[in-house]
């Protein structure tokens, strides 16, 4: 065999790998067809009858559709507006620090929360913000404010979601920008300084343009996943009282599909979500290529 097929052993290694992608990635893609069928476990995927866009129509006309759409897009845009720029600013600031030890300390500490699990993150939110025993409400009442039941208040949900995301991930996300900043030629700064440019001017005119291609690429990726708001954290933060502002496509798919066993309907909702996402990604990528010359492909 070895003589007949060159690289025989390399292909042998790839067999389990391709099997993995076949079973856990391509087979589910094939299974997406149940979104257009009335799936019954007895008849299987192939045997179940076609119903066209019935599930989609039912979904678009349901009471939930607008709420899910507004929440999903609302949370994503909020996150994009706040959580996207913070790591950039943080990286620009860390880059300006002269003292090596202070720099190292800031980096080590701000990266650390990234390693906390979602369960712990939401658990911390719940205990810190508890209206009766949480430290935040103790401080509020100490300063003479009303206690707030943050976790069950629909109006607070999105802010808590985005705020805790920034706390947990801003440091970690800044790594990539810090890496891009170190690649900028220091001679540019020297030349600009001789010409009398101030620190802020140099950051604005040298550092920021220097990392602009990194920013654009990450922006495309972020916008391209607008419909994929973090399911795990939303799911954990969700409760009956805040659901009006926390229900998104992903949690709805989980509820109707896994808990409610409406496989076809839930698959249709999921498919709608991914298609919108894909269209967004392609559109943003195209725009970015036209405007800035940077793109994913």
């Amino acid at each position, binding site marked *: 065999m*070895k003589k007949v097929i060159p*690289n025989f052993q*390399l292909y042998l*290694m*790839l067999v*389990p*790998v*391709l099997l*993995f*992608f076949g*079973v*856990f*990635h*391509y*087979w*589910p*893609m*094939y*299974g997406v067809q149940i979104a257009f069928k009335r799936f019954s476990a007895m008849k299987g995927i192939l045997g179940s009858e076609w119903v066209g866009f019935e599930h989609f129509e039912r979904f678009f006309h349901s009471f939930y559709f607008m709420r899910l759409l507004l929440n999903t897009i609302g949370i994503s845009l909020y996150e994009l507006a706040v959580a996207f720029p913070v790591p950039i600013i943080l990286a620009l*600031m860390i880059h*300006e620090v*002269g003292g090596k030890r*202070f720099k190292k*300390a800031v980096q*080590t*500490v701000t*990266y*650390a*929360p990234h*390693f*906390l*699990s*979602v*369960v*712990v993150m939401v*658990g*911390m939110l*719940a*205990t*810190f913000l508890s209206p009766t*025993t949480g*430290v935040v409400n*103790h401080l509020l009442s*100490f300063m003479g404010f009303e206690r707030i039941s943050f976790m069950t208040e629909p109006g607070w949900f999105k802010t808590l979601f985005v705020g805790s995301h920034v*706390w947990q991930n801003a440091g970690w996300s800044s*790594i*990539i920008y810090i890496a891009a900043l170190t690649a900028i030629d220091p001679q540019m700064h020297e030349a600009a300084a001789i010409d009398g440019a*101030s620190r802020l001017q140099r950051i604005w005119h040298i550092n920021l343009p220097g990392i602009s291609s990194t920013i654009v690429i990450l922006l495309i990726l972020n916008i391209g996943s607008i419909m994929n708001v973090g*399911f*795990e954290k939303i799911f*954990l933060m969700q409760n009956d009282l805040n659901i009006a502002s926390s229900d998104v496509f992903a949690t709805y*798919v*989980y509820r109707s*599909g*896994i808990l409610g066993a409406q*496989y076809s309907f*839930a698959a249709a909702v*999921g*498919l709608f979500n991914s298609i919108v996402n894909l269209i967004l*990604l392609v559109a943003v990528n195209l725009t970015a290529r036209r405007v800035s010359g940077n793109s994913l492909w």
Partner: protein
Amino acid sequence: MIHKTRNDKIFDTLNTVILSLILIVVLYPLVFVLSASISNPLLVIRGEVLLFPKDMTLQAYARVFRDGEVLGGFMNTLLYASTGTLINLAMTTMGAYPLSRPNLQGRKVIMLVILMTMFFNGGLIPTYMVVKSIGIINTYWAMVLPGAISVFHLIVMRTFFENIPQELHEAAVIDGSSQIRTLWSVVLPLSLPIMAVMTLFYGVFHWNSFFNGLIYLSDQSKYPLQLIMRDILINSQMQDMMNLADESAVQQQLMGESIKYALIVVTSLPVLALYPLLQRYFVQGVMIGAIKG
């Protein structure tokens, strides 16, 4: 060097002050959790513990370590994390190595097939149905197989392999070494840094994950630690840890809050303590991925 003007000095001071504030904001919740976990529960609930522990006690830890569910979850997570990470490493290497060899026919096509899965996927329900129909639902396999390879990590590892000098491969071939042997005794010994990074990324992922357990497992005895923690931390279900007979409802509520803090410390400390030692590798991992990705 650039000469510092007065404005530069103002800038530096401001920058340091703001970064110090950020440092405090990030650090404070972590320190508070630690302090609250070893303080008298009553003082924590009344809001008298703000930074340093008061009236220290290890009661909450005693309860956490005695609890059967938490221990069971811990053992399950150890199992999923160890076997899962081993499978991850083996599978990612078996994908990354062949695809890093320039003379492999069809490597572009195979790479495309793999990359496609980053942008297209069947979604939650069809994936769930596949796991169900191959019969691994509610088994240990459901925790380790569906995520056996992360495409992102595969690309990172492939990039690392590509940077190993060609001459070493050629020398091995001249010596009559087979491809599997070359991988095992030439390439892998040179790849310890990337293997460390991968072990960390995959290991932390398994340690922190609760989602697969949530959808694929129905037996509580198979739940990973994070899923057990969800019930305690977020849904406040911890009757098991209470001495229902000889504790009043108030005492139970008091203890309940302390148990939450202790549990957060116990489950997060292993990762957070390891991380500064291994920070260099983590950051390297992100960089390699960023350059290529």
